């Protein structure tokens, strides 16, 4: 299906919300790809970090909200430190996650059974994953 564009969609409320929470201007991105090429976990993402930026420019915030990518991002800040436009891409990822989380759509539930080795995991891993991924 094509992405349909119209003037109400570009810079729509949800995109504005992402910009507000992240304090970043997604329209500064010129799609150089530097964020993606440095991303250590891009292989596990469904859309690449530069595509996250692009979809935001196209007003497709929903596609980002529903992506795997935002949950795969490890907040390593490689993208943010390399972006030639000074965009803090990791903040954009965080903003999208937090919109989901504020809607209570966490990807990890603290009581979920699939954290199989919960006993082995150090507190640092658990606390951080809960902060990033639980709603």
């Amino acid at each position: 299906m094509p992405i349909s564009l119209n003037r109400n969609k570009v810079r729509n409320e949800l995109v504005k919300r992402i910009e507000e929470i992240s304090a970043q201007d997604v329209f500064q991105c010129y799609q150089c790809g530097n964020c993606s090429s440095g991303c250590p976990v891009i292989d596990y993402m469904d859309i690449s970090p530069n595509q996250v930026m692009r979809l935001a420019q196209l007003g497709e915030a929903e596609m980002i909200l529903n992506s795997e990518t935002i949950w795969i991002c490890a907040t390593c800040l490689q993208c943010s430190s390399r972006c030639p436009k000074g965009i803090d891409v990791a903040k954009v990822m965080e903003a999208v996650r937090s919109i989901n989380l504020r809607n209570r759509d966490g990807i990890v539930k603290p009581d979920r059974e699939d954290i199989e080795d919960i006993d082995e995991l150090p507190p640092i891993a658990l606390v951080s994953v809960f902060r990033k991924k639980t709603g």
Partner: protein
Amino acid sequence: MSLPYFPGCTLKVDAKHFEDSAMKVMEILDEPLQEMKDWICCGTVFSMTSDDLMLQLASIRNLLRAEEQDIKELIVLCSMCYNTLKRAEKFITEDEENLRKVNDVMYKEDIEFHGLVEVKHLLSILKERITFNKIEEKTQKPLKDFKLGAYYGCLLLRPEDMAIDTFEDPDIIENLLKSTGADTIKFPYRLECCGAYQTVNNKDVTISRTYEIINSARKSGCEALVTSCPLCAFNLDQRQKQTAEAYLDFKKMPIFYFTELLSIALGSGWDKSWEKLHYVDPEPILKEKNLI
């Protein structure tokens, strides 16, 4: 005089050897560490949202406690704690407005916060205050012929404005290790993320990172890796078990905290109890190098 330090939760549980060895080392260097009082979880990850102050409060509250204890310089061992607390420090010192907001939010607690605490990583203290020359002088058991790779990961270096060294090509850990007589190798993946908290519910991601990072180190000639973060240590060490299961050609490699090796070099030795906190047994290589 003793240096106030913030341990963080993991150093009290899974990374006891990190704290232990750091205490020993600083004792020998005549600048003993003194755990600060009333610390709470650092927050582990600095919230990167710009609209909700509450998410920042855990780390800020630690700074506030420190200020109340008259601490000017707060020393941190764990990279993740360093990152979170340092960013909290920057958050309040860079913009007066932020400091004001923090005080507003915490008005009920009847306190006045000035944002005067400086957060420092132990590595910076070793470099700037102790100096590597002194470490070289004090080295009793040089880590001779030990080929080590320093693994920085992300949180000591990014964002750039709080990096403990030049962020694209740091060498603070290498220089520290060199001062104890070790050989260091700058291996390509030394600044690459280990996958961090993905280890909890995206284990595959971390396993593949571990595979890549350790392979890269091995190909470059490293015999062991050195880190300063318990989460990196977990991913690189404990996860080697699953890595070996997933990749048949994978060869294990011991992982150390920089303080463990310093402890050996400076003469306070290797504590047998540290061994079981490692997954890949570090003792064979230490024996091979005549260090224990």
